[in-house]
């Protein structure tokens, strides 16, 4: 990325930070919200304590299990859920024309405005881990930091790729005043049901497990939980794809699938977004005023 884009991204980030900080009450609410979410799942873990409910192959600590779910949830919430509303904000605010009349790339304004989501949600994912660890008995192990880093990068990229596909639908398919279907199908249907934030997806009926195999969350959570929760089993396959390709270790397969998803979703989202902008330029729909 050229310095120009980098400078602009920093300036967008600064602006979003100023705006975010101007709502001080929001910041407090935001910390409390993360705390309460963690408390809810801690309380839920009390129900499972002493029972013979198994989280195999993810150890036996439900708080650890669920805060990792929250960690991925908050990241996904930004990377997948944020691009569409940010593009929408640029459009309805009428500023797309002004950004287009600058030397910036098509992506920089959207990425820059997304920084609000990054400020909002990325620290939450860390806070969820911290609250779980400090107050509610979550335990983690960091014996494979390099693998964890790769998984983290791949979940960031692959979810952002889907987010870009979602954002591109604003201009490409003209979803301006209605529910955006890509985000709805991924975030509100498949992910909500099969990502396994709060329960292992092995408890779901097999067709839903297969459906869960279409999203990166399933593989990221599987790998993170196997690697980070004490007692996690790194060798036994449980996901449909792991069972089908049992020659590969589950974590290796998870990483491979995440890499493939990143390699497919990200360029596809990038391409679709450019096509969407070009279509809007042809049709005169870059901003709401004509």
């Amino acid at each position: 990325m050229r310095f120009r884009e980098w400078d602009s991204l920093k300036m967008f980030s600064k602006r979003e930070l100023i705006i975010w900080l101007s709502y001080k009450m929001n910041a407090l609410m935001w910390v409390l919200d993360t705390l309460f979410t963690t408390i809810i799942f801690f309380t839920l873990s009390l129900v499972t304590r002493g029972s013979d409910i198994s989280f195999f192959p993810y150890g036996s600590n439900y708080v650890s299990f669920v805060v990792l779910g929250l960690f991925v949830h908050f990241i996904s919430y930004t990377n997948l859920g944020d691009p569409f509303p940010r593009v929408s904000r640029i459009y309805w605010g009428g500023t797309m024309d002004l950004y287009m009349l600058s030397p910036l790339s098509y992506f920089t304004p959207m990425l820059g405005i997304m920084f609000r989501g990054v400020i909002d949600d990325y620290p939450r994912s860390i806070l969820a881990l911290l609250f779980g660890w400090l107050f509610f008995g979550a335990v983690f192990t960091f014996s494979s930091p390099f693998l964890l880093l790769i998984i983290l990068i791949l979940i960031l990229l692959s979810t952002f790729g889907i987010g870009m596909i979602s954002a591109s639908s604003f201009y490409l398919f003209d979803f301006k005043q209605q529910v955006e279907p890509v985000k709805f199908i991924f975030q509100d249907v498949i992910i909500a049901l099969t990502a396994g934030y709060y329960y292992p997806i092995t408890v779901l009926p097999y067709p839903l497990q297969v459906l869960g195999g279409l999203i990166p969350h399933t593989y990221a959570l599987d790998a993170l939980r196997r690697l980070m929760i004490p007692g996690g089993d790194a060798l036994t396959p449980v996901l449909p794809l792991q069972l089908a390709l049992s020659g590969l270790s589950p974590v290796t397969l998870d990483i491979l699938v995440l890499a493939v998803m990143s390699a497919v979703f990200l360029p596809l989202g990038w391409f679709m977004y450019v096509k969407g902008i070009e279509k809007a330029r042809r049709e005169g729909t870059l901003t709401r005023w004509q």
Partner: protein
Amino acid sequence: MAIENVIEMRNITKRYKIRKSRERFTALDDVSLSIRKGEIFGLLGSNGAGKTTLIKVMSGLLQADEGTGETLGYDIYKDHKKIRATVSLVAPTADVGTDNNLTVRQNLEFWAVVYDLEREKREERIDEMLDFLELRQYENHWPMSISAGNRQKLAIARSLLVKNPVVFLDEPTVKLDAKSAAAVRELVKKINLEFGITVIMTTHYIYEAEELCERVAIMHKGKIVSCDTVANLRRNLQRYDEIVITCDQPTTEALNAITAIPVIVSCEYADGKLTVGLENIRSNLLEILKVLRGHGVSITEVATNEPTLEDIFVDTISGGGV
């Protein structure tokens, strides 16, 4: 020396899709236009006439369906990115692009980076704009706490941060009170004079075009129905200027002498007033007065009645004379 054109549009047509319909709305219909370097050019027309669409085509924000054209020598189809990087635009409402959570200065700092102003020159340029637009006293104010006129000045300041040779102003005084609108009009003149920037502005305020623009294109239903200097538009209008002279009853010889002047089309005396219809008031007024005085007519008052741009506009869009 040949006049350098910064914009050349030839037979531009643009049709918009109509939602839930196969039909298309023609926003620009075979529009041809040249805009000279350094002029203030007005696009005049009522709502829906195609002014904003034309601005968007010229600025590279919208692709035309038919026709050819260049802005600053760049082809509107192949080089639209280059065009966009070398022109500025002020949107119809000042709030577009103005963040109310940032101060006036912070807003300018933001856009200075977006417009890729050299790092070392940013502060200096922002200071220059704050002074030039008389916004210095508001630099640490929130945009919502300053007047609408000053917010519009902020929008203009943003567009001037980079010294682009062409600035498009889309209805720059819309929603402003009379005082603020006058201040913005003064500013437009100043930008043009001091920086030599070509200003292309849309407006539906006729007096504004008349005050600011060297040339005006009158748009109606996607077409340019007339394009010329305000003076020429007046001249071409098949409505004559009028002089009303309060004077003694002129003699028949005096009346005949006036009617003999080639540009005179009517001459009538009634109720102590001589009403003369003529083609060009400015060049011929003195001659008429000289003839009357030569025939011993005592003149007490002279009133002129030239057609305004509004007359031309109404006449043009109603299919009249130009």
